[in-house]
């Protein structure tokens, strides 16, 4: 039995693939922005033991890191409406990604904060800076810089994980692949090409984020 590969048949679906790619990117961008913001808040309250938030974040981090993203997504998309909260597939996807990345980045950023040399904080304290000033001006940037590569890896993981958002009919890249293969009956070719697209997206996002990190986070690389 010989199978004739037909990748050309995918060409007519390039608009759908492009739209899917853009939506995956948009999901990732929004998820990253709010997820990292949540992570900074969580890391600060964990590292500085701000009651009761340190406890709240500790429980949140454990709950999220020990359950699958897909289940979190289903819980939000199918579970919340049964409590009377109406939520569409995009809102659910973004919420799940933010919550997921927030938990992981809390732990990553916390490790960076806790690696701050004691002397740095003592020096800032001796200059009569407040706790808040010390965190924002002295601790945060070097901590982020230190763990930025780990954050980049986590964002890539979240982007790749977003492919399961197709399961709640969010029309992102995997949804596009499912749609196309149901039309052209070329499942292997379609998934193969889309997998390649994810691979390139992962490379691009990592590079972009590493560069952005160099630009946006002040100070020199140590």
């Amino acid at each position: 039995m010989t199978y004739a590969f037909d990748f050309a048949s995918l060409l007519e679906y390039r608009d759908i693939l492009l739209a899917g790619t853009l939506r995956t990117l948009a999901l990732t961008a929004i998820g990253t922005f709010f997820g990292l913001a949540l992570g900074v808040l969580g890391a600060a309250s964990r590292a500085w033991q701000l009651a009761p938030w340190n406890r709240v974040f500790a429980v949140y981090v454990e709950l999220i890191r020990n359950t699958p993203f897909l289940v979190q997504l289903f819980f939000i998309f199918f579970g919340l409406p049964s409590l009377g909260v109406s939520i569409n597939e995009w809102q659910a996807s973004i919420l799940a990604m933010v919550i997921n990345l927030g938990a992981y980045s809390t732990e990553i950023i916390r490790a960076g904060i806790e690696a701050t040399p004691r002397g740095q904080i003592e020096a800032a304290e001796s200059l009569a800076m407040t706790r808040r000033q010390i965190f924002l001006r002295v601790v945060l940037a070097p901590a982020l810089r230190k763990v930025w590569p780990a954050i980049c890896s986590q964002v890539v993981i979240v982007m790749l994980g977003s492919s399961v958002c197709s399961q709640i009919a969010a029309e992102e890249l995997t949804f596009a692949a499912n749609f196309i293969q149901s039309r052209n009956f070329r499942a292997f070719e379609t998934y193969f090409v889309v997998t390649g697209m994810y691979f390139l997206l992962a490379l691009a996002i990592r590079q972009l984020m590493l560069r952005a990190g160099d630009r946006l986070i002040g100070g020199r690389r140590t």
Partner: protein
Amino acid sequence: MNDISTWDVVRNLLDGVLWTLGLSLTAFVLGGLTGLALLFARIASTAWLRKLAKAYIEVFQGTPLLMQLFIIFFGSSLIGLELSPWLAAALGLTLFTSAYLGEIWRGCVESVPKGQWEASASLALSHFEQMRYVILPQALKIAIAPTVGFSVQVVKGTAVTSIIGFVELTKTGSMLANATYQPFLVFGLVALGYFALCYPLSVFSRRLERSAHGTRAH
């Protein structure tokens, strides 16, 4: 349809937990063996072997697990193999696990100080003997905590196999949620099931990590 009792739900979910556990163990053991082969390829003296292993790892770490499963599921039928969802899931997760474990273990081998390689080389040990007697015993100690830590990712990864039709915990949950119209309860219980599997592993991994820092290396 609505006469399914909570007890029925729990009993079915527990069945799902067993399938999740079985798949996790299979993928972890087979993935560990494959990962070991990858590790040796990754640090081999042959350049093309190193490159091949690196490419393998990058592809599996750089693409969605769901896509890997789709390709295995649909690709196998192209070569005339009709894989059951169980086999496709086990194969996919094994490959996925091996890529991560291979890379984690390579990091452990590389964290053994260079002086250990030099000292054993100066004693005329061959590359294999260096690995066997000096490097791997030390790397193994470093590797235990992150390996246990990664097992959590394997358990969570099994959820994705529900999408290719393997009936484990998540798939069971989806079916029950449809049948009972109680998605909040059902998915809450599903999450609880994963948590019960993963949390002890997370705690264990953290404890190992802490004791590895606190005590000496033998």
